[in-house]
């Protein structure tokens, strides 16, 4: 894992991509292929391009949300405010879309900015007030929920998604779902941010040892705050896409994304303690979880069975490669 930390010398190029394919990522991709093969025994549809593209589209929402979650987990923190940030992004974007043509055009930015603000509160709490991230994001989640319940009156809001939101989430270009392209672009930006900018270096550094990063001249508090703000913005963007996909926002639409986003990041080999992990792993984790959920539902396994299998598989996979070293 040292490859990600050295590179202080600007003349050194990034390590060869082959060196970065570590065991967790390989295992995760191996499991994806295994899942597809198992699925194809059940029905040959699992290997058809239509099915796979459909999975990419569904996975894209989780992918965008998990990107933000990964930033925060790399810092050694966690963001539990994702559920209502997703919902808030979706609701605010739909609400803006109801305000005539100007609102319609601004719907997506409005949703994202609202998420950014939520993330900023998280970031200030974690970075400057030094409250454990698990607590402050939990409280902010409750506040976001309170805001949305008060705003909507507890019912599903009547506003529907703008045309642009629908196009981004449900449209296709040359047969490729736009949502997948959005994820691709988000992912590319995330990789650039993590691997090619000082900010990305600082994120890994802080995840390893914040005091050391601080002594090395990294403005650690600002970096943590920005990472949380980005996580909020990405979660809200995920919500905007979801609203576009479903046509409108709904209460607690984000609840189904908290645990999968954490699981996707961790299954992709990112250490929950921070400082270690690659974006390709997160991609593998997202695809793995999306496929798992899809195959379980196609096989018409009842909800209870899905929950059990889902939990057991996450534990099994982590036991394969997520174990901590013995500290002594």
């Amino acid at each position, binding site marked *: 894992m040292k490859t990600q930390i050295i590179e202080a010398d600007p003349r050194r190029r990034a390590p060869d991509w082959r060196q970065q394919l570590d065991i967790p990522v390989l295992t995760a991709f191996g499991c994806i292929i295994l899942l597809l093969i198992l699925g194809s025994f059940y029905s040959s549809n699992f290997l058809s391009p239509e099915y796979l593209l459909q999975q990419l589209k569904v996975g894209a929402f989780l992918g965008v949300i998990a990107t933000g979650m990964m930033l925060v987990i790399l810092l050694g923190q*966690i963001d*539990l405010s994702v559920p209502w940030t997703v919902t808030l992004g979706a609701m605010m974007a739909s609400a803006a879309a109801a305000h005539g043509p100007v609102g319609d055009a601004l719907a997506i930015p409005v949703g994202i900015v609202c998420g950014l603000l939520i993330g900023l509160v998280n970031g200030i*709490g974690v970075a400057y*007030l*030094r*409250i*454990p991230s*698990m*607590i*402050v994001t*939990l*409280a*902010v*989640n*409750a*506040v*976001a*929920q*309170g*805001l949305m*319940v*008060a705003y909507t*009156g*507890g019912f599903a809001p009547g506003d529907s998604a703008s045309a642009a939101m629908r196009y981004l989430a449900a449209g296709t270009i040359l047969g490729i779902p736009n949502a997948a392209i959005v994820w691709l672009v988000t992912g590319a930006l995330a990789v650039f941010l993590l691997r090619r900018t000082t900010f990305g270096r600082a994120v890994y550094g802080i995840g390893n040892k*914040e*005091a050391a990063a*601080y*002594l090395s001249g990294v403005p*650690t508090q600002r970096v943590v705050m920005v990472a949380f703000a980005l996580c909020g913005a990405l979660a809200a963007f995920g919500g905007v896409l979801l609203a576009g996909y479903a046509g409108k926002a709904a209460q*607690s639409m984000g*609840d189904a994304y908290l*645990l999968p986003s*954490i*699981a996707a990041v*961790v299954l992709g080999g990112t250490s*929950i*303690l921070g400082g270690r992990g690659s974006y390709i792993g997160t991609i593998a984790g997202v695809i793995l979880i999306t496929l798992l959920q899809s195959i379980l539902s196609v096989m018409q396994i*009842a*909800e*209870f*069975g*899905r*929950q*059990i*299998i*889902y*939990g*057991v598989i*996450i*534990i099994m996979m*982590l*036991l394969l490669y*997520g*174990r*901590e070293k*013995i*500290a*002594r």
Partner: protein
Amino acid sequence: MKDWRFTLAEQRGTLTALAIFIAMFTLYVANHPAGFTANVVQTVANKGVLLALVAMAQTLVVLTSGIDLSVGMIFILSNCVASYLVAGSAMATTFGVVAVIAIGALCGAINAVIVIFGRLQPIVTTIATGAVYFGIALWIRPFPGASDNFNSDFADALTGKLFDVVPTSVVALIGVVVVIWLPFQRSVLGRTAYAVGSSELAAYMSGMPIRRAKFVAYVLGGVLAAMGGLFLTFFTYSGEASVANGNTYTLYSIAAVVLGGVSLFGGRGSAVGAIFGALAFRAIGDLLFVFDVDPLWQPLFQGVVLLLAVSIGSARLFQVRNRLELFT
């Protein structure tokens, strides 16, 4: 320094929680239309005891610097099991209660084994096992309901009043503290749990039984969460596998633990503090009811209070002389 000052310093978190609770409760009772009557106290106690038990469960794990995100699901699972087993004759009911507690202990033991021997992070482990426990709950109780010959007399006895004054649930809670918490805290295992939370390495170097202490902490956590589930069954006369309920209790248990002065980094705090934290948190929610606030604003109010409460801890930042201390 005199002895009592040490004791005071040690109990500061608990006493603060007690003070918050008394303030909130006084405010509540003073504004309640019925005033300070046995019935009002009984209602408050019954609602509070549920969260108090789950918060105690969370405390045990948090003391070892872990976190149990499956408490809510163990709570729900035991609620569903109890809705079948707390039925029939006195013998059968007793067996049912013991069986439910045993199932809670088993859930805790599974968490413990994965965390201790699987060496996975508690947070990811319990997210996954929580999904499994919820799956099982949904399996045995797909629709809300209860056994036909549910022992409602027994349930009434435990949720009623002793001598028409003291709520039985509070007596039961005190019983749990005396039978489970105090012996644990005073035992070698309990001291080890604290030591592990402060510094696992130091505890190891001192030759303390780390693994056994962690194991017992998780198992007792499961037992306490199961007791919470039992009480939920006594109040509602039924079992319901509800994700929302499980998640709410998990989140509230963390909030109660923080309000109760238990450090999330482990090693500091007490389950008694968590109980007062839970009661205070409930009282905050109830305040809105007596002040006749629109229920729609309740989640927002609760969230803001939670956010403010967790921000109080950052007052210690004013004492920091060396900025490097922030990062340790």
